[in-house]
């Protein structure tokens, strides 16, 4: 992940932005998508379709509230099912945005600039979808405020020693901080849109949202200070969130969950799936809006490298799970490991290995990393694999715990699928709205990049 050092052959690496761009051309190109470009038939049809899927989500949640969680496939002993699988999957996807924005910012990686904005938006939408699942999984979402500590007339308080309460704090903090980070990043761009807007209502909306930003040197000084601090704060935060999510499992004594490898391997898996989702979105987006000059092939290749690296950490996690099960000699752990290979859900485990470990090895080849259709397919495979991982973790352990009398089987119902597909629709619909409503690439940061490029990289990254 070296920034802009010379390649071994002594020739300059490809630039992070298409040559020939100026401050004005970058601004024009990105802001015109929001301000002047008419809504195309493709966007409208896509939006209508996604809106339909969101209505399916509404229906599924409405029916759930009417009938209760019995409409899902969950039972005793498998009380978690799709709701928690999807929660962990979505929250994992939500990790790439803040990783790109915060960690790559601290590491001074220039390639974050053209992808950070929509990766952050993706994070927010994914966290929103994630948060929905535990909420409706309670069966009585209108009572969800019970999870927060407040002086109730019943005189009871949350159990702060429970990972489930840690989760409430971790996810709500993550959502809040991601929103703040995103908004701070947007602020100068909202001012740009305000100044360039032609119609009155655009001027009013962006005028209000930009808070009167005028880009004075004093403003920028405080702004950069706050942004750097936020990046520093969000870095441990992003690592903590999936750690806490993994505690939901690892703190319990259920075989297959009670392992110390869970926190690091969950975090790596989250980044893995997050980058896969960034690719899934970036590839069509750059094509549809002609952003190939900003999100270059080199960006895609860089993301593929991150996927390869985090994928290998995940593979190591799978290996250690098996190793520890057999090394410990604990008969329940050994049994569970064998259940993964030979139990009723074994096909899911093999599919998981195929999607998450075997297929991504193709990314070792530069030809594959620079082949856009291959990367797109790969990103979909990895996201499927990460979903399967959570399914394997939740379902196999719960169906095969200590006593055979407590064993069970799990199969999702149509309502489980409707809810899951519904959140996919919600997520994509929000992305559709975001792309046309706000600048999908950070304009002021792109201008900075143009500035740095025009003065040669001073070799400080």
């Amino acid at each position, binding site marked *: 992940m070296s920034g802009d050092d010379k390649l071994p052959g002594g020739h300059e690496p490809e630039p992070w932005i298409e040559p020939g761009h100026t401050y004005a051309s970058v601004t024009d190109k990105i802001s015109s998508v929001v301000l002047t470009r008419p809504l195309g038939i493709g966007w409208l049809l896509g939006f209508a379709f996604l809106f339909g899927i969101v209505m399916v989500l509404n229906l599924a949640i409405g029916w759930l509230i009417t009938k209760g969680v019995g409409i899902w496939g969950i039972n005793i002993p498998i009380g978690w099912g799709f709701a928690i699988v999807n929660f962990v999957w979505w929250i994992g996807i939500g990790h790439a945005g803040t990783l790109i924005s915060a960690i790559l910012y601290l590491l001074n990686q220039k390639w974050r600039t053209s992808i950070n904005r929509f990766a952050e938006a993706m994070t927010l939408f994914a966290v929103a979808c994630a948060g929905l699942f535990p909420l409706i999984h309670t069966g009585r979402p209108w009572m969800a405020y019970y999870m927060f500590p407040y002086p109730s007339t019943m005189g009871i308080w949350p159990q702060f*020693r429970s990972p489930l309460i840690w989760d409430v704090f971790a996810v709500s903090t993550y959502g809040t901080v991601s929103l*703040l980070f995103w908004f701070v990043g947007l602020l100068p761009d909202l001012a740009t849109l305000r*100044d360039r807007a032609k119609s009155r209502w655009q001027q009013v909306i962006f005028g209000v949202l930009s808070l009167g930003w005028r880009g004075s*040197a004093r403003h920028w000084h405080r702004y950069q200070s706050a942004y750097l601090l936020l990046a520093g704060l969000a870095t441990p935060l992003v690592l903590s969130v999936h750690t806490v999510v993994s505690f939901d499992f690892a703190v319990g004594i259920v075989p297959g969950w009670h392992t110390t490898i869970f926190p690091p391997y969950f975090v790596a898996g989250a980044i893995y799936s997050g980058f896969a989702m960034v690719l899934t979105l970036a590839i069509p987006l750059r094509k549809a809006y002609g952003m190939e000059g900003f999100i270059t092939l080199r960006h895609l290749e860089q993301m593929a490298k991150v996927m390869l690296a985090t994928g290998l950490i995940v593979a190591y996690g799978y290996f250690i799970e098996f190793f520890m099960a057999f090394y410990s000699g604990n008969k329940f752990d050994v049994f569970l490991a064998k259940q993964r290979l030979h139990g009723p859900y074994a096909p899911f485990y093999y599919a998981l290995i195929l999607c998450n470990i075997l297929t991504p090895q193709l990314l070792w080849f530069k030809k594959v990393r620079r082949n856009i259709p291959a990367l797109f397919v790969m990103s979909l495979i990895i996201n499927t694999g990460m979903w399967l991982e959570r399914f394997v973790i939740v379902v196999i352990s719960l169906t095969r715990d200590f006593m055979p009398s407590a064993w069970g089987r799990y199969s999702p119902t149509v309502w489980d699928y409707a809810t899951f597909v519904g959140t996919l629709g919600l997520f994509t619909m929000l992305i559709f709205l975001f792309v046309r409503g706000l600048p999908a690439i950070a304009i*002021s940061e792109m201008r900075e990049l143009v500035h740095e490029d025009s003065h040669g990289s001073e070799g400080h990254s």
Partner: protein
Amino acid sequence: MSERRSQLFGVMGEFSTPESLLAATKKAREAGYKHVEAYTPFPVEGLSEAVGFKWTAVPLLTLMGGVGGGLTGFGLQYWVAAITYPINIGGRPLNSWPAFIPVTFELTVLGASIFAVFGMLALNKLPQPYHPVFNVERFAQASTDKFFLCIEARDPKFDLVETSKFLQSLHAQHVNEVKDEE
């Protein structure tokens, strides 16, 4: 705008590169102007020092937010688990502090982030929908590709004619008066 009383806020010069703005800002300070402000479409290194701005309270506020958030987080959990709602489970200690770390950490980050963002906005006096510089028509370019230097009228050395000439001598492309409408 009809006959509204307006007073002079300052004089503003326009530049097309960050380097020329930075050089002009330094010269303005050297010439003895104190109330100088520069406006740019992206942060320019060294510019805030050039306008005479050195220290910001944002990091201090962030630290306060973080410490406050952390103390709130731990204090809340200690008070709930050990004082107001103690649950004795097999005689385990009520102040089980290792179990309180995740929430303490999250609230530390939350407090620090909120203070960083809202502290930054408050110190920048935002939201502020109206500012005299917006009255200059060309200032809309300040968020695209132009760089502006404004010498404010409250500066003791300010003189409309002299200061305008001074800005022109720095090769400013357009020199405009900035009017403040009351």
